[in-house]
């Protein structure tokens, strides 16, 4: 272990049991600036690392000349793929991504070489002096043409993993769900084509970390990540080290939202540290961060909904195309999720869903909050509104009429055996009373266009939208999903809990402590810093699973520790692994369940949105949002509300402003000047109603709460814009030009 670092102090909780609103255990140091984020770390003798990245979306690398860079003052190492001692590629699920480019770059910003120097500016300048000779190649930027283009990965990294056979070039995964009789006709049919742009997680804390050589050939990496153990398992083979020689410690995480599931600077900093035998810190700047992590898949969706005259949906047909970008990341799972939730939380007896992700030379895509369900919710809810219009039925009534619930079957054939109160969340949301329209004239800040004073209210129309969304909790499709927790009980009555579940801001530290205090019946509980050195894997802080899994593991470990102390009477130290009920793979040909459920549990949310739109200028203002969310049991109600409000804001961003724009695969807006995220002026008041319908298989009946608000809010906001404008608005983000009729 390194002795040069100030580890974050073990955290103590004042009080708080399961179900109480408890102040954040890291709240005080985060308000005083004393909380150490990954970018705040330092060590004696530390060097700064910098990454040279590809300026091309697709090119052959003909040569790399380091000689100039190595002569610059302060430069201690300049490394390329030749210096990667072990496996040359890595990946979250498929090792298809080079640690450093070998003979080809496949996306704009792909790492080519890394530098370590005494000052960050020296490292940047040295990187500029590396001479790379590229032969630019035609980039694949249109996902619809990817399957007719030369393969970017001729070795087909995702083939042979049990997915449906799709021999077309550049297919990452195709999933087909064929349910009932997909040729079933209805009295009414509505169709639509929908598009979603590429969204960025835009966490505020940039990718950062510090690698410290241990002097014995191993390395300690202090990093902001979502899954310590799977980082380790990807890093160690590339460094040609055993897993126990690579210890990953959780440094303060400045937000994640899926963007820290894949590796960023971990292997690079470790390579530099081991090469120089000095600690190496890497901190991406904002521009680099936009190329340093995967994004939400942009999507193209073709949908047809068929219903009987009384409103019953009888058939949904949908084709989903997801642009996975240059490397696989978690595209295979996103593909399955998009398909699984394509029909929305409705009874759909017949369906034909085809979901395909492809390799292109666009920025790599992977996990982001909502994980495939965001894209299909946007399309499916627009279709429901279209259907309501075609049937002359109130859109909320139509949703209630078709709402799925316990005992019904998903289009994968999976029966709903747990909690899924779709009807109840719709009714509770409907009961939330939107504010009456504000009078004119009024302060410009409360008009579309805001303080720019672009209107006095002429041409401003009000609209109300409604949407429902749902998503799975935890990992699916047979993944062995587990979480470890370790509990030590001391003779003085105090306790220490170890759990590697990453605190990324969502509040899992409080959950762990609340569960431990509840189970142990004491407030004298400390949470030790997360580290691969002290406890087994927790799985990732993602998939709305961390609260469920950590609560299960800590509960079980606490109960085991109490039993052990009962037996032995002394100090005890026990570790327990928690697993949720198993899931099973879907049939690759039909997308139907085989010998068990593909998803362990589901959660839903309904949302009502009021907007005002300046239909002449295309400017929008979201006035009010009311939402009812299925939360199972709120472990920390204040934190649950925070997840709902924040998740809603990210969906608002996708609806109205957030899109990574590329030209020939090159990102054109890699800054907060050009990639806009919602500000304090963009977010309306959000009223949240927590619907507690306990999940029978989950500890304390809880459900993950992070993703449903993001799944539903984009759809609900655009529904309100359609109500105000009468326009189809089938693409997000909705731009002023779309509303003003300029495109």
């Amino acid at each position, binding site marked *: 272990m390194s002795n040069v670092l100030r580890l974050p102090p073990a955290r103590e909780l004042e009080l708080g049991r399961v179900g109480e*609103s408890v*102040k*954040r255990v*890291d*709240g*005080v140091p*985060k*308000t*005083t*600036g*004393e*909380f*150490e*984020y990954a*970018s*705040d770390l*330092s060590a004696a003798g530390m060097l700064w690392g910098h990454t040279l990245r590809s300026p091309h979306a697709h090119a052959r690398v003909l040569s790399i000349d380091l000689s100039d860079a190595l002569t610059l003052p302060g430069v201690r190492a300049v490394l390329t793929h030749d210096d990667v001692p072990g496996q040359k590629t890595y990946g979250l699920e498929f090792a298809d991504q080079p640690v450093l480019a070998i003979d080809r770059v496949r996306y704009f910003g792909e790492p080519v070489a890394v530098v370590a120097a005494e*000052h960050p*500016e020296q490292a940047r300048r040295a990187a500029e002096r590396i001479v790379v000779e590229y032969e630019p190649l035609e980039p694949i930027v249109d996902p619809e043409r990817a399957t007719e283009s030369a393969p970017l990965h001729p070795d087909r990294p995702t083939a042979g993993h049990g997915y449906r056979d799709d021999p077309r070039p550049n297919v990452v995964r195709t999933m087909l769900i064929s349910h009932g009789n997909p040729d079933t006709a209805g009295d009414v049919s509505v169709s639509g084509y929908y598009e979603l742009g590429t969204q960025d*997680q*835009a*966490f*505020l*804390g*940039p990718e950062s970390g510090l690698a410290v050589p241990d002097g014995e050939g191993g390395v300690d990496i202090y990093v902001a990540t979502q899954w310590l153990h799977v980082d380790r398992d990807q890093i160690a083979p590339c460094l040609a080290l055993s897993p126990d020689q690579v210890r990953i410690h959780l440094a*303060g*995480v*400045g*937000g*994640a*939202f899926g963007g820290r599931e894949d590796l960023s600077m971990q292997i690079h900093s470790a390579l530099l540290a081991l090469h120089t035998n000095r600690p190496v810190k890497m*901190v991406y*700047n*904002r521009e680099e961060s936009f190329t340093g992590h995967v994004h939400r898949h942009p999507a193209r969706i073709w949908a047809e909904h068929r219903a009987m005259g009384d409103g019953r949906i009888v058939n949904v047909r949908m084709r989903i195309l997801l642009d996975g970008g240059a490397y696989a990341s978690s595209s295979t799972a996103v593909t399955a999720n998009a398909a699984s939730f394509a029909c929305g939380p409705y009874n759909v007896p017949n369906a034909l869903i085809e979901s395909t992700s492809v390799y292109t030379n666009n920025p790599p895509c992977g996990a982001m909050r909502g994980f495939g369900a965001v894209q299909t919710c946007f399309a499916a809810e627009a279709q429901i509104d279209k259907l309501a219009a075609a049937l002359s039925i109130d859109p909320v009534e139509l949703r209630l009429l078709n709402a799925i619930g316990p005992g019904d079957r998903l289009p994968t054939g999976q029966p709903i055996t747990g909690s899924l109160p779709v009807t109840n969340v719709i009714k509770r949301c409907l009961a939330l009373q939107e504010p009456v329209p504000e009078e004119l004239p009024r302060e410009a*800040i*409360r008009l579309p266009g805001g*303080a720019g004073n672009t209107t006095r209210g002429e041409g401003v129309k009000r609209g109300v939208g409604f949407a429902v969304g749902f998503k799975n909790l935890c990992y699916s499709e047979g993944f062995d999903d587990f979480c470890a927790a370790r509990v030590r009980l001391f003779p003085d009555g105090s306790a220490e809990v170890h759990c590697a579940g990453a605190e*990324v*801001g*969502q*509040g899992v530290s409080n959950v762990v402590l609340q569960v431990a205090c509840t189970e142990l019946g004491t407030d004298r509980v400390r949470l030790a810093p997360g580290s691969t050195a002290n406890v087994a894997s927790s799985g990732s802080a993602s998939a709305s699973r961390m609260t469920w899994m950590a609560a299960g593991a800590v509960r079980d470990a606490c109960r085991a520790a109490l039993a052990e102390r009962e037996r032995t009477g002394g100090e005890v130290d026990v570790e327990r692994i928690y697993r949720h009920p198993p899931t099973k793979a879907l049939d690759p040909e039909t997308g139907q369940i085989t010998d068990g459920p593909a998803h362990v549990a589901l959660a839903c949310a309904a949302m009502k949105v009021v907007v005002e739109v300046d239909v002449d200028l295309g400017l929008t203002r979201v006035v009010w949002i009311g939402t009812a969310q299925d939360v199972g049991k709120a472990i920390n109600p*204040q934190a649950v*509300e*925070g997840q709902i*409000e*924040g*998740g809603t*804001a*990210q969906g608002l961003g996708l609806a109205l402003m957030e899109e990574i724009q590329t030209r020939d695969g090159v990102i054109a807006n890699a*800054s*907060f*000047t050009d990639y806009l*995220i*919602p*500000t*304090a*002026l963009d*977010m309306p*008041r*959000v009223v949240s109603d927590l619907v507690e319908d306990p999940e029978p298989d989950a500890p304390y009946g809880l459900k993950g709460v992070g993703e449903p608000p993001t799944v539903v809010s984009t759809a609900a906001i655009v529904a309100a814009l359609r109500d105000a404008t009468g326009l189809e608005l089938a693409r997000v983000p909705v731009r002023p030009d779309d509303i003003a009729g300029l495109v």
Partner: protein
Amino acid sequence: MRVTVTVNGERHEAEVWEGESLLFALRERLGFPGSKNACEQGECGSCSVLLDGELVCACLVLAAQADGHDVVTVEGLGAGEDLHPVQQAFVDAGAVQCGFCTPGLVVATAALLQRTPNPSEDEIREALSGNLCRCTGYMKIFDAVRTAAAR
């Protein structure tokens, strides 16, 4: 070059490179990492500090420009258990999640309440619109500002 800056009431000297921002000097040379480096181009407000009492983004000020001037960072508002009322309100209201934006928001809120002790919701929104938060959706931040103002 050598600069002398008063940070949180104490004189500090540092040897800096001419191109270094005040933010880099505070974080990496003077031991004040509370101000955060989220965009380093003046868009996110995470590095907000008071320079001679004015709210500025420390990433847009050169360390050299701060030579001979007075800087207050988030560490100067309150530390340890001795919290500034704004810091306490952020904790109480649940306005902190990942917390990376929090130091900047705390400084911006303190500056707001200094000049407008009882801000309206519109005034709060406008004053904090230069501080991006990706986690909270701002609701509980507004609650915290009102709580701090009331106290």
